[in-house]
C-alpha cells in the first residue's frame, strides 16, 4: 500500500516524458494529461481515507532508514491538499485544452505545454508529500522551473519583463532557501523534518528564532506575504488565464503549506509569534486596499489573492487547534475559489477582449452563465453565507476570538474589515464587467499571442471546467461539517506531532 505515496509524483513525471515524445499528436497528450491527473486524484482520495483511519502513510525511498534516506509522508493535511490540488489542476487542464481548440489561428497544440504542466503537478505533489527539507527545495524547484517555462511560453514584448521579474524573484528566494538549508544543517546535522525538532530544541533560543524567521522569509516570498508580495500582482496577470489560475490556486498555497509544516513540526511556539499576527493583519489590509485601487481585472484578483494569504497566516499565527483547522479549511476553500475566479476572468476577457474594468460591460446580459459562474466564487471569496468562504472565515474568526489576546482581537477585527473590503472589490468587478449594456468585443490585436487578452468564442470544455470548480467550492460548503471535522483532526495532528514523528522515524533502523 505504501507505494501509493510515490504515485502522485512518479505518474506525472513519467507522463511528462511520454508526453514530450508524443509531442506531435496533441490528442494523445491531452488524453494522457487528463488520465494522469484523474489517477492522482483517485490516489489522493485513497491516501486520505487511509491516513485518516490508520495514521500517516510513510514510504522510505530506496529502503534507506531515516533520518538519512528520503521519506515521503502522506498525513491527513498532505493527502487532503493533494486531493484538492489534483481536482483543480484537472479542471484547469480541461479549460486550457478547451481554450486551445477554439483559439483563432492557434490551432496547433504546443509541444511544451502538456509536459511542463505535468511536471508542475509533480512538483506540487512532491512538495505536499516530502518528509525532508532538502526534498522540499527540490519540489519547489521542479514546480517553479515548470512555471518559468509556462509563464514565458510564446512570450511577447509586453510580457517579457513581468515574467523576468517573476523568474528572478523566485530564483532569489530559491537561493535563500539553499542558504537556509545550509544554516539548518550546520545547526542540527539533519534535513529530515521529523528528526529536526529535538535537535532544534537543544539550540540556543537566539539561533532557534533566527532560523524560524529565515524560514518565514523564504516561504513568505513564495506565499506572497506583505511586504514580500510585490512580485505577484506584476507577474501573474501576464500569463494566459488558465496558467494564472493554476499559479494563483496552487503555487502560493504550497508556500503556505510549507510554512505550516515547518512552523508546527520543527519550531517551538513562543511570544514572538505576535509579530506574525501583525504581518497577517498588514497582508490582509494591503492586499484588499491594493485590489480596490486596480482597474485591471486580473491584477485585482491577484491583489485579492495576496489579501487572503493573510487569513491563512492569521490562523497559523494563532497556533491553536481550531486556528489551524480554520487555516486548513481556508486553504482548501481558497484553492478552488481562486482557481475558479481566474478561469472566469479568462472567460470574461475572451468575450470582451480586454482586462480593463472600465472598457468592459454587460457580460451578465450577453452571457448569463458566465455571470453566475463569477457570482458564486466571488461571494464565497467575500465570505457571504452560505458559501464555502463563510464556513472557513467563521472558523478563523472563532479561533481568533477564542485566543482573546488584544493582538488576536485586533487581527480578528481586521479580518472582518478585509472581508468587507473584498466584498467591495468584487462588487466593483461586478458593476464594471457584468452590469450595463453589452458591448462589442474589442478586436484581437495579435492573433498569434495567447495572452490574457484575446477575443474568441468559448467552448463547452472551458465552461464545463469552470463550472466543475465552482461546483467543488459549493460542495465544500455542503460538506462543511465532515470537512471541518477532518481539518480539526489534521490540525490536532499538526500540534501533537508525535504520531507523525514516530511514523516517520519509528520502524526505521536509523
Amino acid at each position: 500500500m505504501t507505494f501509493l505515496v510515490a504515485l502522485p509524483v512518479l505518474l506525472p513525471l513519467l507522463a511528462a516524458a511520454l508526453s514530450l515524445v508524443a509531442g506531435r499528436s496533441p490528442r494523445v497528450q491531452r488524453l494522457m494529461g487528463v488520465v494522469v491527473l484523474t489517477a492522482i486524484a483517485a490516489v489522493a482520495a485513497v491516501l486520505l481515507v487511509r491516513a485518516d483511519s490508520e495514521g500517516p502513510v510513510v514510504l522510505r525511498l530506496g529502503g534507506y532508514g531515516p533520518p538519512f534516506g528520503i521519506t515521503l509522508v502522506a498525513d491527513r493535511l498532505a493527502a487532503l491538499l493533494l486531493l484538492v490540488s489534483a481536482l483543480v489542476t484537472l479542471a484547469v487542464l480541461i479549460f486550457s485544452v478547451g481554450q486551445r481548440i477554439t483559439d483563432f489561428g492557434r490551432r496547433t497544440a504546443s509541444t511544451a505545454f502538456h509536459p511542463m504542466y505535468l511536471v508542475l503537478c509533480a512538483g506540487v505533489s512532491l512538495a505536499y508529500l516530502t518528509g525532508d527539507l532538502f526534498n522540499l527545495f527540490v519540489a519547489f524547484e521542479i514546480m517553479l522551473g515548470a512555471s518559468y517555462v509556462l509563464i514565458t511560453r510564446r512570450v511577447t514584448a509586453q510580457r517579457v519583463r513581468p515574467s523576468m521579474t517573476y523568474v528572478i524573484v523566485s530564483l532569489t528566494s530559491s537561493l535563500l532557501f539553499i542558504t537556509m538549508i545550509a544554516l539548518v544543517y550546520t545547526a542540527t546535522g539533519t534535513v529530515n523534518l521529523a528528526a529536526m525538532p529535538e535537535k532544534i530544541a537543544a539550540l540556543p533560543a537566539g539561533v532557534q528564532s533566527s532560523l524560524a524567521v529565515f524560514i518565514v522569509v523564504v516561504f513568505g516570498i513564495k506565499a506572497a506575504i506583505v511586504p514580500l508580495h510585490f512580485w505577484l500582482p506584476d507577474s501573474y496577470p501576464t500569463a494566459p488565464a488558465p496558467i494564472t489560475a493554476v499559479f494563483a490556486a496552487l503555487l502560493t498555497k504550497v508556500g503556505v503549506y510549507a510554512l505550516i509544516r515547518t512552523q508546527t513540526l520543527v519550531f517551538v511556539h513562543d511570544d514572538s509569534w505576535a509579530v506574525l499576527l501583525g504581518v497577517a493583519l498588514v497582508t490582509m489590509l494591503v492586499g484588499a486596499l491594493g485590489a480596490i485601487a486596480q482597474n485591471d481585472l486580473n491584477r485585482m484578483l491577484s491583489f485579492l489573492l495576496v489579501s487572503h494569504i493573510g487569513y491563512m497566516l492569521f490562523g497559523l499565527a494563532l497556533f491553536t487547534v481550531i486556528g489551524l483547522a480554520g487555516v486548513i479549511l481556508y486553504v482548501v476553500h481558497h484553492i478552488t475559489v481562486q482557481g475558479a475566479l481566474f478561469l472566469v476572468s479568462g472567460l470574461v476577457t475572451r468575450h470582451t477582449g480586454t482586462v480593463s474594468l472600465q472598457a468592459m460591460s454587460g457580460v451578465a446580459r450577453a452571457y448569463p452563465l458566465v455571470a453566475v459562474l463569477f457570482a458564486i466564487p466571488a461571494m464565497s471569496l467575500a465570505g457571504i453565507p452560505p458559501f464555502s468562504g463563510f464556513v472557513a472565515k467563521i472558523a478563523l474568526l472563532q479561533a481568533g476570538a477564542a485566543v482573546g489576546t488584544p493582538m488576536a482581537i485586533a487581527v480578528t477585527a481586521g479580518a472582518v474589515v478585509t472581508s468587507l473590503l473584498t466584498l467591495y472589490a468584487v462588487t466593483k468587478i461586478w458593476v464594471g464587467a457584468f452590469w450595463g449594456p453589452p458591448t462589442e468585443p474589442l478586436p484581437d490585436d495579435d492573433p498569434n499571442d495567447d495572452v490574457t487578452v484575446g477575443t474568441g468564442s468559448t467552448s463547452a470544455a472551458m465552461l464545463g471546467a469552470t463550472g466543475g470548480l465552482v461546483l467543488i467550492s459549493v460542495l465544500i460548503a455542503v460538506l462543511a461539517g465532515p470537512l471541518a471535522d477532518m481539518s480539526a483532526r489534521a490540525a490536532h495532528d499538526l500540534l501533537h506531532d508525535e504520531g507523525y514523528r514516530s511514523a516517520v522515524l519509528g520502524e526505521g533502523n536509523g
Partner: protein
Amino acid sequence: MTINITMAVTLAGLYSIGFYLLMQRSLMRVILGIVILGHGANLFLQVAGGPPGEPTFAGTAVLEAMVDPLPQALALTAIVITFALTTFLLALAYRSWALLGHDEVQDDVEDRRIAEAERAAREVEEETPESERVAGFEAPEAPESRPGEDDEEARLR
C-alpha cells in the same frame, strides 16, 4: 564545529557581491548577481558539512576521519538545479533583449500609472502623447506602448 575563517570571508564576499549586483538596473548584472549568489549558496551548503576529511568509502579510512557526505550530495543537486535555471535565465534575457532592444529593468507600469494620474491631477495641462500612452495600458486596442521611450522618461524623472 570549528569555523573556517577563509570560507566565512569568501561566503560573505560572494553574498554581498551577489546581492549588490541584484540591486542593479541592468539586467545582465542582475543575472550575474544570481549566478554569484548561487555560487555562494552552494558553497555554503558544502561548508555546512564541517571540515574536510577522508573520502567516504567503506574500508578506506576510519569512520571519524571521514567527511559528512550528505552536504556534498545536497550541494551537487543544488548546483545542477542552479546551473539549469541560470541557463534558462540567460536564454530568457536574450529573448528579452531581442524583443525590447535594451537591457534596462523598467519601472512598474501600474505604479507609474497611479503616479501619473496624481501628476495629471496637479497640473491639468498635459501633453497629448503622454495621456495617449497612459490610455494605452488601460485599453489594449490603443497603439502599442513604446518601452524604449517609457524608459527614457523614467530615467528623466
